């Protein structure tokens, strides 16, 4: 398991962040998903080899839930 941190942009409100967070928590290959609205960061843990696949799943859910939101690696 490796910890990853991404910048998450265009989140409108805390509640949207919370809802997106619970949607992302349903992805099976990542753990300890957390979105900080205050620092605009997305945190998650996953196995190093699963990273690309995890990102794809995350982006898919973001597109569905909050289409304006983009994530960037820091």
């Amino acid at each position, binding site marked *: 398991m490796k910890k990853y*941190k991404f910048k998450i942009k265009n989140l409108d*409100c*805390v*509640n*949207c962040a*919370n809802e997106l967070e619970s949607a992302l928590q349903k992805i099976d290959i990542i753990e300890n998903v*957390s979105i*900080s*609205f*205050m*620092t605009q*960061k997305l*945190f998650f843990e996953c196995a190093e080899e699963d990273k690309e696949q995890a990102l794809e799943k995350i982006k898919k859910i973001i597109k*569905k839930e909050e*289409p304006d939101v983009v994530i960037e690696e820091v």
Partner: protein
Amino acid sequence: MDQKMKKQLIRIIIAFLLVIVSFLIKFENELYNNILYIIAYIIVGYDIVLKAIRNIFKGKVFDENFLMTVATIGAFCIKEFPEAVAVMLFYQVGELFQSYAVDKSRKSVASLMDIRPDYANVYRDDEIEKVDPDEVNIGEIILVKPGEKIPLDGIVIEGESMLNTQALTGESVPRKVTLNDEVLSGCINNDGILKIKVTKEFGESTVSKILDLVENASSRKSKSENFISKFAKYYTPIVVIIAILLAIIPPIIGASFNDWLYRSLSFLVVSCPCALVISIPLSFFGGIGAASKIGVLVKGSNYLEALASTEIVVCDKTGTLTEGVFKVQKIEAIGFSEEVLLKYATYAESFSNHPISLSLKQTYGKEINEKLVTKTKEISGEGVEALVNGKIVLVGNEKLMKEYNIKYQKSKEVGTIIYVAINNEFAGTILIADKIKDNSYKAIKLFKNNNVKKIVMLTGDRENISKDVADKLELDEYHAELLPQDKVSWVEKLMTQKSSNGKLVFIGDGINDAPVLALSDIGVAMGALGSDAAIEAADVVIMTDEPSKIANSIQISKKTMRIVKQNIIFAISVKIIVLVLSALGIASMWSAVFADVGVSILAILNALRILKIKNAF
């Protein structure tokens, strides 16, 4: 205020002016007034309506954009034009204020933590290049001029200066550095010019670690945050369902449809959760920022929350409550001056590598003329005999005095006592002991003032020394002569003594404390600047060696929790009151807007108070 906010503000102002005009000038044909309202509505709310339409297709009906759109369009339908525009207008004012406040607090926390260096002056090919700290490699030489931040951790190879470490430690007294001293990134170079050899990459340097820590803190959410987001999850659907029922059932049994639809629309306005939710993470964020300002890094909102219910504080002794350095504390000379006694003792011990000899040399502080010392004889377990400047000097413990039949006076001090005899006459005693930090007294007092029920000291040191420290500090309990595993079992035992919501805080210097740090509710590592292991193991890191900082953090935590509770209770009760009043037909849509936007603004203002705590200590 950024571009996006400015644009929003202009839209709000234009819409507001249109509403005023329409309010003041009554056209003969009401239609013109209504057209003005509709134009104002479109200007201020078009983005919300667009988002709402997009969300319908996704089935997200509890989304606030959707709820606001339904509430306002509903109001238009029952010909409540001013209300419809006002709801949208105030909703946008609330949104704008919210993003302004969040942005502002982000910036002020960032400035509290203003330690990120912008550049480094690095020597490359005999010239100084200004580069991003990220691009400097280990082993390269950097130049730091007065007034600049030290960009990377390293060792001074030329120059000396006073460093301002306030941003890192909250400590206002500058620290002197000179050749071969280690320097940490984030400190500000006050006066001299320093050449520094870089020992860590930027990503691994103190500055990056600290910034990372504070940033990651908001990922560990507090119970209050989880409570409020759970509350929001149920609150909105319930209110929306009641709103639908209000619009349907009473008209079926014959009540006025328009009247009940109005009440139902008020419900929709109050149903938005965001106003309720925003102030809580904002408060914690501010609290963590305020703590870092005084040199305390809290690694999660959950720990900040827990600190407020601290019941038991467990401290390590050496290095935590005491300075951890053995120094000459007291000299009692008989027939000589204190200085002369110290001189003879130091000379006699000068060939020894014993810690006692080191303490003596440090206190004596002058050059030792080794030619004056002859015939040094170490008597194992007792002390030293030497000929110093023609005088026979005995330095050691009581056994040594007895062995040489010296008539000595037994000292009542606690610590390591050195007896000195000169030419077979007792000449006095020197007390070498660890000293209690001045700050510890303040810390213990502050703990007690903040409802800490029990303060316990656990130490591996001897019983009599530990008792002395515990008595002087008026601790509730102490346990001495403990092995590391004994400390673990004591903490286990103490964990059972607190009440169900109470928390146990362990404070240590972070060395060999890992099991205890993990076991306690909140593990605090002290003076941990530069010690990676301690920063890793602890939940809270104090950058200086002052235990009172933990008491200050408890104060910050309590203040944060007070504000969090005020906000939760205030927001929920206003919402419920307005819901009840709207259902009864007493409250208008105007009060519904207040319950949504007004409450959110007040809660945010309340939360921002936490940042004001920064100069309180």
